[in-house]
Each structure stands twice: as structure tokens, then as C-alpha cells.
């Protein structure tokens, strides 16, 4: 094991390219801000959300980003908690992206509240029986725990607590995603939710979505910064992504097969899987085929190219958005069952499939969340030494690796 220490280099700031990218992202965020002002000033009646479909497109974006945030931390956890040295040089970026994605998701979630001005109320009034209240604590704590973990990776004086910080962050992210999945798992009223499988399903989703976003940022940044990136490292990540895609598909299968076995869940399953219109198309076409099977084939090719891996990651992201759309909107579109076995009608849409068409303002708000996450990642990687100088093969291979005791080890 040859030992060579190498540096992490901050992204050079204030260059033309840097300013262009950040300017573009700031513009997207500003447009999202204007969308929020419009929706909050007019009230939610100008959105596609109604008294029947109460959570809409902003929540699809927010949940995707929050779920992906905990998944993005996995690369760091695999390196530190599970001791896979090849992943250790990427731990800093992994932790930074996790925090940035969570900030983007929470930004969207909070700005869609009916009373976003009362955010302080959510921070000061806690109903501890509510999984939402627990999530407020878990999300806030995530910044503290992962921020501290990042500190231990950057500052040599903190090496003694590197491993405990890594384990804490890993456990915290598992609990956090369990909490996010349980938002749905605890809803006994809705036939499409109300299942314990929601928690592990969301964890599997987070693994896939977070790694896909991580790979995309890594490839994009190495190209933009002209830093070497090993093909073998990418293939390893691709195979890991394949494993996570398969885990997601497995839990989706469990989710639906379990429900199909229960007679009273038959109608909602038939709706999602067979005759739910846009939801059925999104489920089979976008979530399962394009977001699951196609990327799985791409990443498992023995000679997968960068192009394959990039395409697979983009498909996992798009398929993930479709998956959350089907769970969230599809689950609300299906009517509540007040009188099992009966046909019902009312002035309040009882018994009807509830319509939902997202408006432009909602989509712009959601895209603002993505832009905020990317902006924070770039600023963070510009202010601190986050990205390795090189992730190349052979002579190019340079990476700083830390073992459990905090001693620098060799890489590659």
C-alpha cells in the first residue's frame, strides 16, 4: 500500500464560468421566489391544489429532495462506517450535498405552507405524537449532525471523533428517512398509504435518488473543473446504483403485492396499476420502465461508459419524481372510502377520482428547490476544500484516506 497524501481543492470562485452558473441558479431561485409571492398573495386557489388533493407538485419536489438528501450521505457512510476506502475521498462532497439537498427540499416545503410566516410556531410548538413534529427535529438535527461529521472530515484536529460522528450521521439519516416514509405509513385513512412498508421503501428510494444526484454532480464538476475521474470508480458507483435501483423495485413490489392481497385494497391497486390514467402510465412507464429497468440494464453492463452512467442517473432522478408523484398525488386522487362497497356522491367530490393539474407556479417553486440545493453545493465546495484534486486512475490517483483511528492511509 503506497502512501501519498493529496489535497482537496476548493472550486475556484469568481471565474466567468462560476459566475455564469451561479447567476443562472440565482435567477431560477428568484423566479421560484416570485412564484411563492404570487401563490401566497392570492391564496392556494390559484394552484392546482384543492380540498381533495391537498398536497401537490411542491410536495413532490420537496419529498424528492428530502429523500435524496439522506441518500446522498450514503457515499460518506460507505467510506467511513463500512470502511470502503475507495469511497472515502468523496465523503466531504457527500455530506455537503446531503445538507444542500435537505435545505432545498425544506425550502420548498416551508414556502408552500398556508402560513409560511409562522415557521417559528413549528419550531416552538411540538405535538410529540405527530411524525411531522418529529421530522422537524430530525431535519434540523440532520444539519447539526452532518455538519459536525463534515467538520471531522475536514479538520485533522477532529479525527478522534470522526468515526463516532460518521456512525451517528448514518443512524440519523436512517431514522430521518423512516420518519419521512412514516408521514404516509401512518395515514390510516388513505387506502394507498397506511403501510409499514413505506419506511423501508423510502429508505431504498433515498439510496437510489441520492446516489444518482451524487453521480451527476460528480461527473459534471469533474468535467467543468477538468479534474480526472476514474472510469473504474464510476463503474463501481454504477453497480452500487444498480443495487439501490433493485432494492427500490423490490420494495415497490412488496408495497403493491401486500396491498393486492387485502381485499379492501383491491380498488386502489386497480386504480394505480390498471386504470388510473396518468398515474398508471407514470407508474409503469416512468417509474418502473424508464426509472427502474432501463437504468438497471445500463449500469450493469460490464463495459458501462460514462454516457451510460449519466443517462442511468438522469433516468433514476426522473423515475424517482414519477414514483413520488404516483404515491403522493395518485394516493390522493383515489377517493376516500367512507362507505365500503357502496357508491357515493356529494357536492364535495365523494366517490370521484379527484382531479389535479399542477400549475406553472408550483413547478417553478419546486425547480427553485433543486437550484437552491445546487447553489449551496457549489458555494460550499468553493468556500471549503470539498472536492478531491483528482479521482483519476494510476499516476493520477490521488486521494486522502482516513482509517477508523484517524490516521491517514494510502489510497488506490
Amino acid at each position, binding site marked *: 500500500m503506497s502512501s501519498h497524501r493529496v489535497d482537496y481543492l476548493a472550486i475556484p470562485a469568481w471565474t466567468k464560468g462560476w459566475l455564469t452558473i451561479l447567476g443562472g441558479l440565482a435567477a431560477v431561485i428568484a423566479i421560484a421566489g416570485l412564484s411563492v409571492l404570487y401563490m*401566497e398573495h*392570492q*391564496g*392556494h*386557489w390559484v394552484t392546482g391544489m*384543492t*380540498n*381533495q388533493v*391537498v*398536497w401537490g407538485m411542491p410536495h413532490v419536489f420537496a419529498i424528492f429532495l428530502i429523500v435524496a438528501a439522506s441518500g446522498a450521505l450514503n457515499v460518506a457512510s460507505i467510506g467511513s462506517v463500512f470502511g470502503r476506502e475507495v469511497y472515502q475521498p468523496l465523503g466531504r462532497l457527500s455530506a455537503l450535498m446531503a445538507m444542500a439537498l435537505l435545505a432545498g427540499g425544506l425550502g420548498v416545503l416551508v414556502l408552500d*405552507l*398556508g*402560513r*409560511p410566516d*409562522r*415557521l417559528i*410556531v*413549528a419550531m416552538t*410548538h*411540538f*405535538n410529540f*405524537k*405527530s*411524525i*411531522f*413534529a418529529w*421530522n*422537524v427535529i430530525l431535519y434540523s438535527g440532520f444539519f447539526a449532525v452532518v455538519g459536525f461529521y463534515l467538520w471531522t472530515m475536514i479538520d485533522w484536529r477532529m479525527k478522534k471523533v470522526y468515526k463516532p460522528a460518521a456512525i451517528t450521521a448514518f443512524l440519523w439519516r436512517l431514522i430521518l428517512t423512516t420518519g419521512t416514509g412514516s*408521514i404516509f405509513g*401512518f*395515514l*390510516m*385513512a*388513505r387506502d394507498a398509504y397506511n403501510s409499514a412498508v413505506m419506511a423501508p421503501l423510502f429508505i431504498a428510494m433515498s439510496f437510489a435518488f441520492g446516489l444518482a444526484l451524487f453521480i451527476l454532480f460528480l461527473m459534471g464538476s469533474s468535467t467543468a473543473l477538468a479534474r480526472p475521474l476514474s472510469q473504474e470508480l464510476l463503474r463501481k458507483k454504477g453497480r452500487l446504483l444498480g443495487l439501490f435501483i433493485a432494492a427500490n423495485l423490490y420494495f415497490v413490489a412488496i408495497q403493491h403485492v401486500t396491498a393486492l392481497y387485502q381485499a379492501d385494497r383491491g380498488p386502489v391497486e386497480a386504480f394505480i396499476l390498471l386504470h388510473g390514467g396518468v398515474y398508471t402510465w407514470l407508474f409503469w412507464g416512468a417509474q418502473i420502465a424508464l426509472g427502474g429497468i432501463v437504468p438497471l440494464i445500463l449500469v450493469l453492463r460490464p463495459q458501462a461508459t460514462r454516457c451510460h452512467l449519466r443517462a442511468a442517473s438522469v433516468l433514476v432522478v426522473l423515475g424517482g419524481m414519477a414514483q413520488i408523484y404516483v404515491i403522493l398525488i395518485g394516493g*390522493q386522487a383515489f377517493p*376516500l*372510502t*367512507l*362507505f365500503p*362497497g*357502496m*357508491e*357515493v*356522491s*356529494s*357536492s*364535495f*367530490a*365523494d366517490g370521484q377520482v379527484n*382531479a389535479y393539474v399542477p400549475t406553472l407556479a408550483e413547478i417553478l417553486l419546486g425547480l427553485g428547490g433543486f437550484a437552491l440545493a445546487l447553489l449551496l453545493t457549489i458555494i460550499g465546495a468553493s468556500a471549503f476544500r470539498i472536492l478531491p484534486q483528482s479521482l483519476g486512475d494510476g499516476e493520477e490517483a490521488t486521494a486522502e484516506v482516513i482509517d477508523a483511528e484517524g490516521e491517514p492511509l494510502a489510497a488506490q
Partner: protein
Amino acid sequence: MNHDTTRRDLLKAAAVGAVTIAPGLTLIAPAAQARALGQPASATNRWGLLIDTSKCDSGCTACVDACKTEMGLPALDRPATDAQYIRKVDVTDLKTGNQHSLPVMCQHCAHPPCVDVCPTGASMKRADGIVLVDRHICIGCRYCMMACPYKARSFAHEDQTDQKAVNPRGKGCVEGCTLCAHRIDAGGQPACVEACSKDGGAAMLFGDLNDPKSEISQRISKEATSRIRADLGVEPAIRYQGI
């Protein structure tokens, strides 16, 4: 003489008796005694309704109209986002063809899912079982609307005008049936029940489920009643007959 004296004594006795008994006797009994200002709601009460669907006509919306007037809910002609605290649901058994109609509102559950899921505690249950939203601390997250098995809550989707003092509303907060808590606290009964009795089929009976002598308790102890989605175990305070 004796006869006159006896008659006078009888009248006196009748007058004394009337004065003594009258406070506890009225021809149309109010649903409850008014609660003094500052006196908290008591767990000795459990307010509820009994709705006889055989007396509820499909075309009648007396309860719905009364609720809108009482609570100041304007019709903005946007059915998807207009608030509805109470609605008429028509139910058909496709196998038998049997049809009936019934009003559905907040069921004021003993174990309300909306209260369980509310992150701030804005969604809350009074000691007397009435489920309310504290609009001072509602952040408008709508998780309670996701959790309610009865779809009983609405979201204030726009600025509110011409509000009623008894039902202050605010854009961005969740709201729903209060069982007319303001009327109950004043010793009255909900507006829907009053309207059903006056303009509808007198299908709704309001009372204290905790008082074994109340009419509602007497009836549910003798007659078969059921609750919507009783299988969920949330123990609604609204009981129905004929569903």
C-alpha cells in the same frame, strides 16, 4: 268559607310549586345549560349527534345552508376550493339498489387522527370532545386533511371577507365543523340541527352522550345505531341510523 280558603290555598300552593319547578322545566328543552365565561369545557360532557337517515331527504340541504350562513362561508363558485364544513352524501348500494342520503361533517372523534398528526398542536380536542383548529398556531401544512378519514376539513384558499364573529377565518389555515361550539357554550344546539328540525325532516338530534338521561343517550341505548368507518376505531361522536 272553608271552600274559599281551600281554593286560595290551592292557588297559593300551585303558584309556589310553579316557581319551584319552573326553572327545571321548559316545553322545548334547550340542549344544554350555558357555560359561564371563563369556565372551561368539562369532560363530564361528550357532545354528539344522532342522525336518522330515514328522515333525511336526498334533495334537502337545510343543514348545509344553515351551516354556511352561521359560519359565514361564502360561495365563490369554486367547488374544488370552497370550504364545506358539512355536506350531503348520497349513498347507493349497487347490489340491492337501496339508496339513502345523510349529512357528513367533522365526526368529533374520541381518537381524532387530525389531532395526532398536527405538528404544532393546532388541531385539538376540547375536554367535552369537540375537535377544533386553533388558528393562532395552524401553519397550514394540511397534514390533518390528509389524515382525516371523513374528509371533514377545508383549507382557506383565499383572503376572507365578511367573516362571522363566531368563526374567525384566515387565508392559509385549515378549518372545519366546530359542532357550533359557540352555540353549545351558550346553551344552544348546532345550527344544522336547528335547521333540520325547522326546515328539514327533523333527522338530527343533538345531546350529551355522557348524560344517561339525555334523549340521545336514551335512544342509542335502545335503538341500533352505527358510525361511519367504525372499523377505524376513532370513536366518532356522530351516530347514524339507517346506514
